[in-house]
Structure formats: structure tokens, C-alpha cells
């Protein structure tokens, strides 16, 4: 599985404006709505926040992967965003989050969901890649980095 298999090229931003967890999730969902890949934003929003309530998806090193399963999507989709200033996302390491990967998967999607998390982690584990993504000037630059990393391993 490649990231570009599920990351929609129009659901990418280097300029997240939101400053709180709720606003960020809404802003990332808006990207998916505008890209025309999700049907019901409200349902996904609710499920994503319920998931956050179980424990933050801020997994450390400035990365968060808000994710949820819901019948609001037909297939696994993702949005990507960078917050230049960083946001308090109640991360497990207590550090601000700069890199957001939001994943939405259909209800019966445990396998692909696990593979998508693995794929994203494989790329974001590398500090150089995280720094490149954070410094990217626009969505086009983000996509270029991700496509390169997709080919690499």
C-alpha cells in the first residue's frame, strides 16, 4: 500500500489555521469535503472526536494521526496538513503537533486501516522527512515529498 493510494491530492495543506484539536479535525475534514471524497462530515467529525476522547492520536515527535472508522466513507481516505506554529493536541509526549494525517475508513476496514497507519509511520519515523514536510512551501511540495518516499520503501 502506498500513501498516494489513499491520500487525496486535493486534501493537502501547508497552512492549517486552526489552533485547537476540534478545529483542526474540522479543518482537515473540510479538505476531504472540498475534494469530494466524503459524504457526511458531521458523522466523521463526531467519530473522530470520540476516538480522541479515548486517548490522543498525537503519537509524539510532532505528529498526530486522527482517525476513525465510519460508514461516512466508501473507502479509506486521508487528508494531510501542516501547522507551521504547532498546536497543543494533548500528545503522548506533551509536545506540540505540526504534522497531521487524518484517516477515515469504512467500518469493515481493520486490515487496510492498520496498513495505512504502518505506511504513514514508516515515512514519518524519519526525522529528515518530518523536517522536509514541515518546511514545505505548498501542497505541491508536500505531494512531491510523499511520492518520493512512497517509491523509496
Amino acid at each position, binding site marked *: 500500500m502506498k500513501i498516494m493510494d489513499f491520500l487525496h491530492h486535493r486534501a493537502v495543506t501547508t497552512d492549517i489555521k486552526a489552533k485547537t484539536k476540534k478545529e483542526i479535525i474540522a479543518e482537515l475534514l473540510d479538505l476531504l469535503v472540498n475534494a469530494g471524497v466524503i459524504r457526511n462530515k458531521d458523522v466523521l467529525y463526531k467519530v473522530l472526536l*470520540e*476516538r480522541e476522547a*479515548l*486517548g490522543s*492520536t498525537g*503519537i*509524539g*515527535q510532532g*505528529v498526530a*494521526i486522527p*482517525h476513525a472508522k465510519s460508514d461516512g466513507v466508501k473507502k479509506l481516505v486521508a487528508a494531510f496538513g501542516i501547522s507551521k506554529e504547532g498546536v497543543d493536541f494533548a500528545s*503522548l509526549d506533551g509536545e506540540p503537533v505540526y504534522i497531521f494525517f487524518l484517516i477515515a475508513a469504512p467500518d469493515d476496514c*481493520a*486490515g487496510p*486501516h*492498520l*496498513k495505512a*497507519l*504502518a505506511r*504513514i*509511520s*514508516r515515512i*514519518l*519515523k524519519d526525522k529528515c522527512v518530518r523536517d522536509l514536510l514541515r518546511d514545505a512551501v505548498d501542497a505541491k511540495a508536500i505531494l512531491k515529498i510523499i511520492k518520493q518516499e512512497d517509491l523509496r520503501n
Partner: protein
Amino acid sequence: MSKTFDILKKTVIVQNQTGLHARPAAAFVQTAAKFDSEIILKKDKQEVNGKSIMGILTLAVAYGQQVTICARGIDAKAAIIELEKVLIEQEKPAAIKEKK
């Protein structure tokens, strides 16, 4: 003065129905972090730092798959006991969480 420790290993079958996704991975890492020992988690030929969530997620461990916990250090034995508990725990479905 420094003592060298043997590597302790324990192979476990993951019991979480949805595999080692973000939440159980976080639980594993939070438990691992309580110990001084070096912790490695292995699946097939892949091995990752047991104190890194992103490391663990890269393994994409599914329900019923086998992983090996390796620990080396002064508290390795206790670490393996606690980490095994995390891996064999069956997750409660979110919908029937205690609300009382």
C-alpha cells in the same frame, strides 16, 4: 562496573481483534517507557524500538499474529511480564465502554 544483561524474549500472539493499531501501540509504548530496559518488538524479520509508537505501527500487527518482545536491562523480566499483558489484552469495543 557496568553489568551486562542477557536479552530476554517472549513470543506472544496478539489478541486484540483489530490488531496493534494506534491505541494498543500507545499502551505498549507507555508501558515500555516505565522500564529502564531496552525493549525491541519483532514481527517476522522486522524489529522496531518498543518505546516508539511509530516504530510499532510500522509492523502492522494484525489479530492473531505472532510477535516477540525482547528486553535487555535490569528490569527486563518485569518489563516482559507487563508488555505481554498489553499484547494479550482484548480490547473493549468503544460502544460498550463503562459509562457509570
